[in-house]
C-alpha cells in the first residue's frame, strides 16, 4: 500500500550516506526542518553537500550540522545571517566550500532539476562576477546565461500537514523552497506537524503532490531556530 509514514526522524534519515547531496528547505528559520537536521547530526553522515538558501544561525539546525564538520560544500544564495558565525569560520578555514548562486537562479535550477530540464537560460547575473565561466547567449537582442538544473540525493523539508500518501501543505512563508526541493531529490523526506489519512487534505489545496515525497514523519511541535537560540541551545 501507498503508506509513506516513518516512525521518527532518526529512521527517516537512516540511509543518508557520506558524500550525499542534500537539499534543505527553509528561508532563514521559516521552513527549516530542524528535527530532521538534528537527526542527521546524530546519524553521523559526513562530507555532505548542502543546497539551501542560507547557511544557518546560532548553533542549532543547519548551523549545528556545519559546526559538526559534516558539510564540505554549501550551495546557497545568502550564507550570512544575524547570529551566523559557524559558516564564516568554516569558510575562512577552507573547510567548507561555497557555491554562491543568485536566489532566483537557485530556485529555478532546483525546479528545473525536478522537472527534467537539464539547463535553461536566465537574464540574472549577466555581466557580473557570478557569470564567470558560464555560457552567454543572445535571444531577441538580450544576453542570457546558461544555468544547469540541480538535483540532490535527498531533500529534507518541513511541511505543516501531510498525509500518508505524501501530499503536503505548508504554513505561510515556511513554504519557500520546499515544494521545488521535494521535486528535485531522489529521496524526499518531510517532517510535518500532523500526519493524516488520505482524503483529509482537500486535493485542490495540496501544494506538494505525494509523488514527490518518499517519507513522512510527524514532528508535532517543531522547534524554531530563533527560540532555540534565545534559549541558549546549541546542538551537538
Amino acid at each position: 500500500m501507498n503508506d509513506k509514514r516513518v516512525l521518527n526522524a532518526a529512521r527517516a534519515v537512516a540511509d543518508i550516506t557520506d558524500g550525499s547531496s542534500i537539499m534543505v528547505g527553509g528561508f532563514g528559520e521559516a521552513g527549516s526542518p530542524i528535527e530532521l537536521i538534528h537527526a542527521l547530526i546524530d546519524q553521523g553522515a559526513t562530507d555532505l553537500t548542502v543546497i539551501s538558501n542560507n547557511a544557518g544561525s546560532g548553533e542549532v539546525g543547519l548551523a549545528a550540522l556545519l559546526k559538526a564538520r559534516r558539510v564540505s560544500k554549501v550551495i546557497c544564495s545568502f550564507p550570512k545571517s544575524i547570529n551566523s558565525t559557524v559558516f564564516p569560520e568554516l569558510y575562512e578555514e577552507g573547510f567548507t566550500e561555497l557555491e554562491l548562486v543568485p536566489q532566483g537562479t537557485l530556485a529555478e535550477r532546483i525546479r528545473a532539476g525536478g522537472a527534467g530540464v537539464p539547463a535553461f537560460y536566465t537574464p540574472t547575473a549577466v555581466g557580473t562576477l557570478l557569470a564567470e565561466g558560464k555560457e552567454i547567449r543572445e535571444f531577441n537582442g538580450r544576453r542570457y546565461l546558461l544555468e544547469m538544473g540541480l538535483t540532490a540525493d535527498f531533500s529534507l523539508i518541513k511541511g505543516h500537514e501531510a498525509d500518508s500518501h505524501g501530499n503536503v501543505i505548508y504554513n505561510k512563508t515556511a513554504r519557500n523552497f520546499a515544494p521545488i526541493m521535494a521535486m528535485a531529490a531522489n529521496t524526499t523526506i518531510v517532517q510535518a506537524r500532523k500526519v493524516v489519512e488520505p482524503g483529509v487534505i482537500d486535493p485542490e489545496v495540496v501544494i506538494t503532490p505525494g509523488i514527490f515525497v518518499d517519507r513522512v514523519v510527524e514532528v508535532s511541535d517543531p522547534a524554531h531556530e530563533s527560540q532555540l537560540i534565545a534559549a541558549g541551545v546549541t546542538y551537538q
Partner: protein
Amino acid sequence: MTQYTDISGWSREQMAQRLAQDIPDGAYVNLGIGIPELVTRFVPEGREFIYHTENGLLGMGPSPAEGDGDPELINAGKRHVTANDGAAFFHHADSFAMIRGGHLDLSVLGAMQVAQDGDLANWSTGKPNAIPAVGGAMDLVAGVKQVFVITQHCTKSGEPKLVESCTFPLTGQNVVDRIYSDLAVIDVTPEGFRVVELCPGVDFKTVQELTGAPLLPANQ
C-alpha cells in the same frame, strides 16, 4: 505461414491483466487511451497503483456512475473520472514536471509500431493529408522511468507491429521496455526482442513468423 487471424491469443482484458501483474505496489502509473485503461480492472490483490492523468490529477479514481460526471473532472482521454482519497490537482507544467522529471514509475501506451531497439511509433501515420496530433505521448516516453506497450501483435490486415525499424513517424527513440501483445510478453533488450512469456497455446515459431524482427527465446 500462420495467419494472424487464425490464432486465438490473449484477449484485451487478459493482456491488461498480465501487464498488471508486473506493476509493483505503490507505483505511480500513467495509462494511455484505449487498451491501457483496462489495467485498472486488474490490480492484483494487496497492491495499490496511483494513477496520474496528464491533465492535472494524481490519484485518479474510476468512472463515476452514468449521469454523475463532472465536465471539469476528466482524464486525458476527456472522459469523466473521479478523484480518490489522497488525490491532488495541479496545473499542466507541474503535471509534465512529474512526467519529464522521471517521477512516474510507468507509462502504459498503445503502439502502431515498436522497433527492436525500442523505438516507438504511436502518434501519426505520416500520411500527407492527416491532421497531426501528438498530445503528451512524446513527453511520456521521454520522461517516465519505464514504458510498457500493450498492443495487438499485428495490424488488422496482419502486418507485424514489432519490426526491425519503424516506418511510421517516431514518438521516441529507444524508449520501450516491454511489450504485452495478445501472443506474448516481449522485452526490448540490447540484443533485440526477447520473449518473456508466450500466450498458452501459442508457440515461439508462430510468434516469430508474425514478428518483423528476430526474436530471442526466453531461456537463452
